[in-house]
């Protein structure tokens, strides 16, 4: 069950990305956080307690929304624009 629910911008052009190996679609104008949380209910598991996290402030301050890309790069999902072909890994210890 996704965490976020779209109520506007539903007809914008689709943008393809991959979430834990599964092909997904976001919309033009999405942040990476929006694109992920319209499909899933978390962004990552926390480092020490492995508890699910899904962002908090959405304005680049709390640093709760870091996600890992398959390339190994770590990005702040709330401040990163979704771009076509992004490959996101949200589960601990998994690398494709």
């Amino acid at each position, binding site marked *: 069950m996704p*965490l*976020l*629910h*779209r*109520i*506007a*911008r*539903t007809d*914008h052009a689709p943008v393809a990305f991959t979430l834990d190996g599964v092909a997904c679609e976001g919309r*033009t*104008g*999405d*942040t990476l956080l*929006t694109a992920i*949380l*319209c499909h899933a*209910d*978390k*962004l990552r598991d*926390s*480092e*020490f*307690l492995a*508890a*699910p*996290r*899904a*962002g*908090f*402030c*959405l*304005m*680049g*301050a*709390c*640093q*709760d929304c*870091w996600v890992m890309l398959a390339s190994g790069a770590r990005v*702040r999902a*709330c*401040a990163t*624009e979704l771009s076509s072909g992004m490959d996101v890994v949200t589960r601990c210890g998994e690398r494709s």
Partner: protein
Amino acid sequence: MSERAAPLVVGAGPAGMRAAQALVEAGLRPLVVDEAQASGGQIYRQPPQGDDRSADALYGSEAAKAVRLHRGFAALADRLDYWPRALLWNLRDGVADIAVGGGNRRVAYDGLILATGATDRVLPVPGWTLPGVFTLGGTQIALKAQGCAIGRRVVFIGCGPLLYLVAWQYLKAGVAVAAVLDTAPLARKLHLLRGMPLAPAIVLRGLRMAAELQLRGTAIHHGVTDIRIEGRTRVERIVWRQRGRDKSLACDGIGYGLGLRPETQLADLAGCAFRFDRRDRAWLPERDVSGRSSVPGIYLAGDGARIAGADAAERAGERAALALLEDRGLPYAASRVAALERDLARSDRVRDVLDAAFPYPAHWSRQIADDTLLCRCEEVSAGEARRAIAEFSLTELNRLKAISRIGMGRCQGRVCGAAAAELLARETAQDIAAVGRLRTQAPVKPIPFTLTTSNEPHEPRHAPAH
């Protein structure tokens, strides 16, 4: 042509935009850096892609102001340098390090206006790290900038005008708002009567929003305490106490905030002197009525200096720019100064009223359960903090950070700092001002390690390619 470097404005919210405008009107060409994709700050945040929603739908009663600000700033485009998606992460000796376009730019500036804005202030409650709990600001951003609701059945918790504003915006967007839980007793709202002669529009707008919420079936509960958010892997339920009784409500999204806290890290790096501010219950950079800080050439404006709201931020931004012009020996509209300062004094009195009507429940820090996380980044619980305070006889916040790692994580204490200070003050029976403040370290936010080693020559005249 002047040999002097351009002034630097940090932040493109209402304060930064107005400051930049006043500098441009005086013939200067400032560089404006801002972290967001688009100008506007938080309250006037623009969606990255326009959608079918009107300005009225996005900004409600503030639509006219938002449109005016955005148009005004866009009209300056070829008379200033504006770097969006740019993080100013270090400041020293008139030079700023800015992460932008995948590289680092080192920029020399002459005159610095810090309009860094604010974030939500929170205190930890059980379950506050669960997916589906967002700050009030974040809850609003999801809707305004991304056209998304944080749940299908949302509860709003906290204090401050933003609590009712965001709940009302969700209602207007067609989202089910199950309840508004106000941490202040209803009687505190009587203070708003004092606000009527000062700011009738603000008070009436707030009352109208509350009335509309109730009319459309949203329960408003006052004087709630002992908040607990429950759920296994995401928000499922909110539990609270009210007049001695336990209550609960099913929900799948929660907007939470206890007022705002200024972003002061850059003022700290710039060497500005700080003082403890009783109203904001925080250490803030010193400034005079014009916005001049304790450091010559550095000016402070907007909520990043002291919480006063968006209208005051516009005026403080312009006022700070006029001070910069005066200090630079340039002509400026001296006639504007008195009007701006009069408006700012009025805004300050309005803020006193709002703070009385929406008091920050600092006393909650006494009740934070030992197993509740205090620090989200390093995952340090309140109990671990209490043990560290007792075991090492800690009395000062930076010592608590060094021993417990609270405030040492990625957010650098932005989220947990206010709560950690309250908790330390309680545990050691000290005044909140006596426990000190977290020292700022560069980088003020995480940046890729490679950036710190790449130093391109600065070219403040050209916008970087994206």
